[in-house]
């Protein structure tokens, strides 16, 4: 079996001003990168992840930093599995929190309001967008949010 390919972004950005650093941090979080070390992040390689990291690299350069995008493989399958597991675990925590929020919204008196449902659906979309290693909890979270939507439709009719 061939080893998987990853897109890496290596970057260095001046500590000050902090605005570009915060913008960078937000973007990397939205993409769901694995932070490999200080200034090195990774995503499983596909056309989209590579492109997104290239845009981030350009932004770092525009902000006076240095950045390069690398295509790489880990040297062994066990390291590869460990990294994938780490990313899946991190996203699993987010799904778990969402499921709990959905349950809490469901317990509230009068059922969940439309605003709460919209917010949870949006949050689910955000998490799914940075989920690279599908696992059963993803489906569980989707069902929890869908069920919430169904309860209000029933209550309204």
């Amino acid at each position, binding site marked *: 079996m061939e080893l998987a390919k990853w897109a890496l972004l290596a970057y260095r950005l001046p500590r000050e001003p902090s605005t570009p650093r915060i*913008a960078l941090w937000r*973007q990397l979080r*939205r993409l769901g990168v694995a932070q490999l070390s200080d200034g090195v992040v990774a995503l499983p390689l596909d*056309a*989209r992840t590579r*492109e997104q990291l*290239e*845009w981030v*690299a*350009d*932004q770092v350069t*525009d902000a006076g930093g240095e950045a390069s995008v690398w295509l790489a493989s880990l040297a062994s399958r066990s390291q590869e599995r460990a990294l994938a597991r780490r990313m899946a675990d991190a996203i699993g925590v987010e799904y778990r929190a969402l499921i709990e929020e959905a349950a809490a919204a469901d317990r509230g008196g009068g059922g969940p309001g439309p605003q709460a449902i919209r917010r949870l659906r949006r949050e689910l*979309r955000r998490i799914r*967008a940075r989920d690279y290693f599908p696992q059963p909890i993803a489906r569980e979270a989707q069902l929890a949010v869908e069920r919430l939507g169904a309860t209000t439709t029933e209550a309204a009719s």
Partner: protein
Amino acid sequence: MRWATRRGCHVDRAACAWLVRRFIDPEAAFLFVDDDADIPADATAFDIRGAELSHHGADCSFETFLRRHDLHDPALLAVGAIVHEADLADERYDAPEAAGLDVLIRGLSMVVDDERVLELTGPLFDGLYAYEQRSLALGRDPS
């Protein structure tokens, strides 16, 4: 004129190509490269790392085109907001259409090549632009 961009057209590149053909260079010929080093000297590069007509700051390439070519048409800005969210989904704009547009073009690029993606998305962006113009004229969503 020749215009060069990265192979594998998704929403931002497809929208840029439409904008070029319709507002900037009706005779435009597009070529697709894997590496920015393969861009011929006589071609204008867009939506590829290092190109002037590319992502800048928080803007996607389509928005950069609008700025650099002084296209201030509010309907184009509205299309730009949708393209931005479809490409980056950073919630800078409220554009619920974006998710649908992204999926449609992403799916299209799975079944046809880049040339065909541009052929097919051209009329789609014509329609989106017409819709935004109508919507602005009416002050509400057109029926």
